[in-house]
Each structure stands twice: as structure tokens, then as C-alpha cells.
């Protein structure tokens, strides 16, 4: 027998932590629709039994939209099967999870282009344009 093989518990999945969370999400959707108030839930702060996080992920399912972010490590931002309920997973440069969140919002803030980045990008584009010869201008004009 391979002693390095990870031990998996034979414990049945649900300990009852998923259902209250789904209820919390329903209330958050109420707030989003009625008062335009978004909610974010940090999953690291909840005591899940083994398998419950996966159970929650299965319960929420996958929706139409999935985005990947590459900034200080990979992140996945995915709409669940319930519009307005987003599953966010952030990893560091070593690929380790550094944060897992459920956001109940129309669009997670991190997906939007940020003013600071837009400004820096505009400056970069101007620089390239101004410092390039006719060939660049020709390319850009295509």
C-alpha cells in the first residue's frame, strides 16, 4: 500500500452548512434587486466540512459567463447558474488559492477596467504612437 496516498474520509458530505448559505444568497439577491445593494461572501471565513465547498459549488452550478484574470497569479471569475451570483477564485503566482468569494452583484468590480489602468494604457498608446515611424502609423491605420 502506498503510504503517501492521501487519506480520504468516508464521511458523507453535507453537515448542513450549505443550505443556510444558499438562503443567505437568496436574501442577497433580494437586496440586489430591491435596493441595488451588492453583497460579497468570503468563503474562507466559514467552517466547511470536507466536501461541503464542492457541494456548494455543485449547488450553484455554472452559468453563461466565465472570465480568467492574469494578475499576480490566475483568477477565475464565473457566473453561476443563478444570474447575479458570481463565483470568484483567486490564486497567487505559485498557483495556490488565496481567496474564494461569492459575489452577488451585476458585474464583479474586478472585471471592470479600472481608471488607473485606463489612464496608464492611454499614455502607453500615445507614447507608442508618437514614437513610432510611418510603418507603425500605417499598421495602426489598417
Amino acid at each position, binding site marked *: 500500500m502506498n503510504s503517501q496516498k492521501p487519506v480520504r474520509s*468516508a464521511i458523507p458530505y453535507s453537515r448542513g452548512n450549505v443550505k443556510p448559505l444558499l438562503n443567505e444568497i437568496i436574501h442577497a439577491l433580494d437586496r440586489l434587486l430591491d435596493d441595488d445593494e451588492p453583497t460579497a461572501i*468570503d468563503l474562507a471565513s466559514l467552517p466547511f*466540512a470536507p466536501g461541503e465547498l464542492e457541494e456548494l459549488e455543485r449547488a450553484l452550478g455554472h452559468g453563461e459567463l466565465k472570465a480568467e484574470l492574469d494578475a499576480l497569479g490566475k483568477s477565475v471569475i464565473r457566473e453561476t447558474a443563478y444570474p447575479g451570483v458570481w463565483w470568484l477564485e483567486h490564486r*497567487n503566482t505559485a498557483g*495556490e488559492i488565496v*481567496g474564494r468569494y461569492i459575489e452577488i452583484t451585476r458585474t464583479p468590480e474586478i472585471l471592470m477596467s479600472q*481608471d488607473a489602468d485606463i489612464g496608464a494604457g492611454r499614455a502607453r498608446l500615445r507614447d507608442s504612437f508618437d514614437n513610432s515611424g510611418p510603418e507603425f502609423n500605417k499598421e495602426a491605420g489598417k
Partner: protein
Amino acid sequence: MKTIPTLGDILQAQGVSRRGFMKYCAATASLLALPPAMVPRIANALEQARRPSVIWLSFQECTGCTESLTRSSSPTLEGLIFDSISLDYHHTLQAASGDAAEAARHAAMEENMGQYLVLVDGSIPMGNPGFSTIAGISNYDMLMETVEGAAAVVAIGSCAAFGGIPGANPNPTGAVSVQDLVKDKPVVNVPGCPPIPMVITAVLAQFLTFGQLPELDIHGRPMAFFGQTIHDRCYRRPFYEQGKFAETFDDEGARKGWCLFKLGCKGPITYNACATVKWNAGTSFPIESGHPCLGCSEPGFWDKGGFYAPLSTGKFDSGEKLAGAAVAGVALGAAAAVAGRRRQAKYTKEA
């Protein structure tokens, strides 16, 4: 005094986007156990934050605390060292040694007088200075000299916080904790054997973000991580309430993941964040792996009887209330845990 760049300056120079920065802030909020709604405030604070100089002193220790820190996943150690703090002295990690290392420590102290943080792992021997020295300097002398100009001191691990293994009976070196010696500076205790790496980095992140130390409990531990017992946040707690216990490590109860109270679990009287923050990048924690909590973040945990003796038979309480709750498995559990905690506080006073 040298000009220290802000974290915002550093990240901008490294080409980190605003999205990347927001992600960093979200991870920091999670690390500090703050709600995600605090992320914008953290972003504003961190952008203006200047890297604090950190001097790490290692005394009577096993290097387990440094090993723990190097496994911190959020932020990574290298991120922490290069972006968030200026780790100016750590004799296990630094390349310099001997006089050059000591010169680096003195330079960091002079350049950051009154503003640097001192992190200590290991206890300090008071029996004979020769028990533990660095570059010919006794642990006591090095500690007292270094903390003189510090903004605050963070005692990392149970040895630095409470004396730990070196201080266990019969304490042959006369080991004492940092708080036994440092009386005129704020001391934050981050106990554990070892401490959870995220908790170590969280204290640094809190100082960096808000320029202040976290709220502490009666043992000087950050409330955000030591405000609740392992038992309070344990996913096996429902079994405790139902009176379902593992009696041995291979019985039906153990296989079904029932409560480990009768196998000596110290969760009801141990304040720590293992049940939520977990270990190895959030993989699991001892109870999830089928082993009772040893209570390693509590003062004097080595001298409190057997690790596998139930609380009801150990030195923690008279036993009657705890045993009653365990055997009957009724709601008395909460009251018994409170009784255990009261005894714990008494033990600490006596120690």
C-alpha cells in the same frame, strides 16, 4: 532617515495593474478576517503604506515558526519580503553572517529608529547566558538592545509567547517569554506550535495597512484569530452536541468523523483559527485529519497532562462538568467549555 517608497509606488514600478492590486487587497481583507466590503478602504491605506523595517530574532527555537512562515500562501513569503516589509535581519534566511549580519541589524535599527518591528521566535534562557547565543551575544542582551528603538514586538510561536517547550517542566534553561522581559513596548503574541502562517502575515499586514496593531485578548493574542475556540468553529461540533464520539482512533466513530473529545481534543479550551484558516494553503487542520487538537496556542500546553487524555480527566478542570457533557452529549457542552476556559485563565495566572 532614508526615504521609504510606498507600497503603491513599488507595485506601480513592478507593472502590477489596478486589478492585480485589488486582488491583493481582497486577499489581505480575507487574511485580516475583515469583510469584503472593507477592500476599498484597504486599497486606499495600502497604496499609501510604507514598508516597515522588520528585524526577526531567533532564540531557543526549532525553526518551525520560520518553516511555517515560508509556507504562507497569501501573500507569499517572497511577496511579503519584497513588497510589503523590509526584512532587514533574519539569521536563518539572510545570506550575511557573523559581523556583517550584526552590522545589518544595527543599520536597520538606526535608520528606522522608533518605527521598526521586532519579530521574535523562541524563548529566552535566563539560567545561563551561554545556553543560547548569537554572534557571542546572549539572547537576553540581543533582545533588550533590539527592542529599545522598536515600534512594537511580535512574539511568534508558543516559545516566544509563553515559554513553550524550553519553558516546559523542569525548564532547565530558565526559559522565559518575550512578554516576561519586554514591559515598555507593545507586545503581540502569535502562539502556536507552530503558528498558522497566515496569522503571522496577517499581523504584519494589519500593521502595514492601518499603521496599528490588532485588538488583543487577555493573553496578548489578536482577537481576529484567537477570539473563538477551535470547538466553536469546528465542523464536528454537531456530533459533540449529539453525544457522538470516537472512542479509539480506528472505531466506527473515528471512521464516521465523530467528535474527538474523548480522544483528548483540547478544542473546547483552545483559542485559534485552525478550523477556518486551516493549514497547507487551506487544505485541512488536525481535527479534519482525524487527530485531536493539542491546544498548542494556549499557555503552558506542554505541562497540562497527556495529549490523548480527555479534558475531563486532565489538569484542565475538576472533570465532572466536562465529563458529564461528553458522556451525555447534551447542550451542557457549551457551559463545560466555558468552565474549561475559566480554569485555563486560572492556570495562566498561576503559571
